[in-house]
């Protein structure tokens, strides 16, 4: 079920960072076309309107913070994007392709990776196998197919190094690694498989302060690769630090959308509480 196609496997360090040198005057958040666009999406759970007519655009290389109080509909929205839930009405497009109604696996294969809080790493397996889980690379020894653990480890090292992370020993089970390192592995898996959009659900919530900082650095690295990031957080400090734009939800509807430079924490809080609602 999981043949590994050598031509689709990216190089160890894909190298979009090299492109970071290119200067371009236009602002991705305004001019360019959206990678992901959500149009008029509604979702109802029983009597609760979890999403009410949401419009959202996401551009390559942009960090969009999704903010809102508990129950504002953040999770519902990302689950619809990730294919876990299907919208009742409205459309979601990735590039030119309509993706609402597809399975989570299909959405992942199209390049939208969701990194949940539990990270979904197998603690007893090493970094290489974790990054390739479900799409392992095989080699033949005397005609017998065998897992190519060494190759996967090397590729993993490349992907991690690309994100600026060095692990001394990649053969260690990831359970022995710190929370920040594990987050980095989950992120590098997304990068390795060429995710165009990475959705991060509270990536800093379970971490200590130094590790939160490391994860925020990773977000910037990812962004530099042209990956679009949806960043869910309760922490306004984090949001203002890493995101380009903030999208505030309030009881299922869109309360407002601001470039991060054009707003203040006070205004965002007011939006989250429903005191400021854009027309």
């Amino acid at each position: 079920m999981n043949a590994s196609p050598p031509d689709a496997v990216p190089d160890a360090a894909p190298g979009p960072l090299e492109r970071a040198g290119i200067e371009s005057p236009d602002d991705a958040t305004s001019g360019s076309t959206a990678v992901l666009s959500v149009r008029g999406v509604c979702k109802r759970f029983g009597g609760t309107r979890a999403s009410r007519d949401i419009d959202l655009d996401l551009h390559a290389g942009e960090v969009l913070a999704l903010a809102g109080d508990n129950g504002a509909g953040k999770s519902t929205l990302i689950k619809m994007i990730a294919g876990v839930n299907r919208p009742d009405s409205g459309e979601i497009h990735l590039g030119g392709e309509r993706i609402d109604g597809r399975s989570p696996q299909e959405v992942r294969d199209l390049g939208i990776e969701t990194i949940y809080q539990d990270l979904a790493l197998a603690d007893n397996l090493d970094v290489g196998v974790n990054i390739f889980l479900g799409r392992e690379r095989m080699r033949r020894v005397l005609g017998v197919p065998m897992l190519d653990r060494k190759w996967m480890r090397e590729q993993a090292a490349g992907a991690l190094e690309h994100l600026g992370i060095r692990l001394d020993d990649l053969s260690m089970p990831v359970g022995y690694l710190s929370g920040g390192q594990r987050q980095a592995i989950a992120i590098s898996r997304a990068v390795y498989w060429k995710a165009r959009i990475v959705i991060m659900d509270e990536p800093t919530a379970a971490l200590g302060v130094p590790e939160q900082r490391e994860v925020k650095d990773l977000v910037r690295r990812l962004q530099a690769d042209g990956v679009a990031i949806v960043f869910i957080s309760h922490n306004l400090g984090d949001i203002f630090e890493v995101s380009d734009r903030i999208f505030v939800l309030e009881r299922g509807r869109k309360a407002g959308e601001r470039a991060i430079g054009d707003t203040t924490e006070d205004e965002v809080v007011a939006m989250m509480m429903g005191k400021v609602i854009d027309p």
Partner: protein
Amino acid sequence: MWRSSSTRTERGAAAAEAVATTSRSGGESSLARPPPSPTTPLAITLHPATAMNPRVRLLQLLTAAWSWLFLILIMALFEGWSWSVYGRTFFGNLYNVQAVLLTATQILMMALGLTFVIIAAGIDLSIGFIAGLAAVTMAVVIRALPELPPALSFSLGITAAILIALVPGFVNGWLIARWKVPSFIGTLGMFGVTRGMAFLVAGGATVSIRNDTARSFGNARLFDVVPVPVLVAAVVTLFFHYLLAHTRFGVYVYAMGGNLQSAVRAGVNTTRITFALFMLSAFTAAMAGIFYTARFSAGAADAGEPILLNAVAAVFIGGASLSGGSGTIAGTVIGSLIIAIIQFGLVFIGMPPFWQFITVGLVIIVAVLIDQSRDRLARLGAGGA
């Protein structure tokens, strides 16, 4: 399931378009604390759990080595006893070594499939009577075909034994994979069912056979040295090692035991794997039953009953954890040897046979205690993070 290369270029274009906004991310990742190691030139050096390395390494080494140490200890014990009481060697005696290996083979055959199940965080309690069912089925089939050449009736007996053993294996898989019955309960139920089936097939008695092929399969020695069952077991064991350590199936088994969600999100068909696990376990139990019938020229419904405890002990001594995710075939081989030496050794030094049960039971408890303290130590090792 991969995106085509055209999507890659598409993304490349999008990326180039986007870099403008991201130039700020280049040089500003200075950390508040000093970098933990001078050998890491990169901007981000993650929290230094890697500083724990020597400790973690040592721990892993001990984890891997303790069953070896235990094996050596127990060998030394019996060797010493033999010299001091009988004034002669224990392991220097070919007969003793052969007997130990034959006992270990019985245990190992059942423990092989069980290792997979336990790594995937399950348990299979029905294998004892699956082995018994296979043993009596083989004997009954061979008995029913006295006019056939012995090699043919022997082959038919083996085939029937394996096929019938796969039935409870399939039911186990169906209950646990399809209906999400906890494996402990599902296989405990099948323990009863197969027990009854085995006695029904056997007609309540031991079924003896007279078949030359079976007898030589169970008792012949290659070059007068290596017992044939040991040889066959070695080949089967190598295959199972390959399956666990070098195939996707093996990785998925480990992933399911380590974090079921990780396997599910990676698109692994966990239902199918669970099915395969219990079929595999039933298959190796059938092998144990076949070895029994061949060795003793008789099938008994309770042939595998005492071996279940031994097989479980072998897997845990071999480094598997009750919570799943760890264990190896090599470990299970060592575990089987340890149990076999204890069993044979106790008889050798003249202890009443019931002491075997007590000793093996205690060994299981010790293995689980060690496993738990290992978990605690491991958490301590990664603790700073």
